[in-house]
């Protein structure tokens, strides 16, 4: 069995690795992932059976990484490890396979591993989705592999039929999230200018009018201009004045 460990504290990774190896020396343990994004990338690459994720990690937290692993339809079973995180524990009670508290007890860890071994593969496991804080990166799982964009680099979101396209200066990914959900999650940075578009407020360069009276927005980092609907114009003006 392959096991992956992700934690931003080196000594925490080292201890968990030792405990897992003591429980079963035949397990292959990968323990280099220092943040959620590395954890996600390594899970995609190494396809471990079990992954132990710390909740609070830089770059991408454990909950988000776990949700992405589910999006990528990997078979990895996630077990969360946390020092103390009340809100996360609430979420676990409903959804998670298991969670462990630091410092992890060996006996408890053993139970957890056994629990994963008995899980039926068809059994649906719901991961906690209450990502109360906005994500820092967005991912798309394509045939080429995992594509990752930093949210702060995204210039705009544009809805097109089933998908929403997130664009930066040099790349774009398609997301399954709805524009409405993205608007709520990133309301600090993004603003709706049209039924089908959200723009990064910090990327606004200029607003102009076309010959037929339609307002358009010009953004730093892209040549594309986006239409501003009449309905959203007043709120946009207000936001820009403050």
């Amino acid at each position, binding site marked *: 069995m392959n096991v992956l460990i992700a934690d*931003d*504290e*080196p*000594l*925490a990774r*080292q*201890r968990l690795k*030792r405990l897992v190896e003591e429980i079963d020396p035949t397990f292959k343990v990968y323990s280099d992932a*220092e*943040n959620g994004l590395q954890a996600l990338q390594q899970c995609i690459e190494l396809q471990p059976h079990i992954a132990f994720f710390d909740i*609070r990690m*830089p*770059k991408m*937290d454990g909950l988000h990484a776990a949700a992405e692993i589910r999006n990528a339809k990997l078979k990895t079973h996630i077990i969360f490890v946390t*020092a*103390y*995180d009340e809100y996360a524990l609430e979420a676990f009670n409903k959804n998670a396979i298991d969670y462990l*508290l*630091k*410092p*992890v007890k060996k006996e408890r860890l053993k139970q957890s591993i056994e629990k994963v071994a008995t899980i039926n593969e068809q059994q649906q496991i719901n991961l906690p989705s209450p990502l109360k*804080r*906005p994500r*820092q990166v967005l991912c798309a799982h394509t045939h080429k592999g995992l594509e990752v964009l930093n*949210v*702060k680099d995204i210039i705009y979101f544009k809805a097109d039929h089933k998908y929403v396209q997130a664009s930066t200066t040099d790349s774009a990914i398609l997301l399954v999230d709805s524009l409405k959900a993205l608007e709520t999650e990133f309301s600090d940075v993004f603003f709706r200018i049209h039924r089908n578009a959200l723009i990064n407020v910090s990327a606004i360069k200029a607003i102009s009018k076309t010959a037929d009276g339609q307002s358009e927005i010009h953004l730093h980092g892209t040549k594309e201009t986006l239409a501003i609907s009449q309905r959203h114009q007043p709120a946009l003006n207000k936001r820009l004045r403050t």
Partner: protein
Amino acid sequence: MAYHLTTASARAFPTHELGNINIYLRNTGISIIFSAVLLRFLYIQFQWRKQTKAEAEAKLDALQARIRPHFLFNSLNTIASLTRIDPPLAESLTEDLSELFRANMQTSARLVAFKDELSLVRQYLNIEQSRLGKRLSINMALSDIPQDALIPPLSIQPLIENAIYHGIEPSEHGGELAITGDFDNNKITLTIKNPMSPDPSASSRPSNHIAIENIRLRMQSCFPERSSLSISSSELEFQTLLKFPYQTSQP
């Protein structure tokens, strides 16, 4: 009162019953007084219990506001890990953690010497250094501050904890924590700088305004009008400035 009742009943009843009624009334009187005293006692005891409970709860609340559970359990985890890899370090971190807790539980001392608070800071930083590894680099220049200057206990360590919690821990590559001290014209200035985490999740970490406000209040009560605690931030850096007078005797 009892007297009037007895004389009144003396007229209404034949004399041979007088003695019995007298005893009866006296007994009733005594039991009423006794009950009243007992009730009063129970009431006072109840009030006292309620008050001590409230005080204990307040103390516990204050303690919890100061020690982050997340820090405690992660530190214990670090120590658990080190017991196999580096037992001497595990031992010394256990001592450091104990000192930190002892200081947090002590409420009697009104003022401590700067050198004592500084040793607490060093013990705290030992733990964080082991926990965060290469992500935390520390630059401390405090030799200018007189070691015997008096300050309220736990007025510096929580500020440094804040800097690490918001500036270093949530950041992928960590950064430098700079602590510098100036001594000029009998005034002491302590500056704590930490990088602003590029990670937006850092700003969503619950801020410990209570701790900061608590330090400000205690500083003010020790050095009225002569101390200040200010925070400022730019895009890249967060800065905490603590100013207080050089004083070596309890006011």
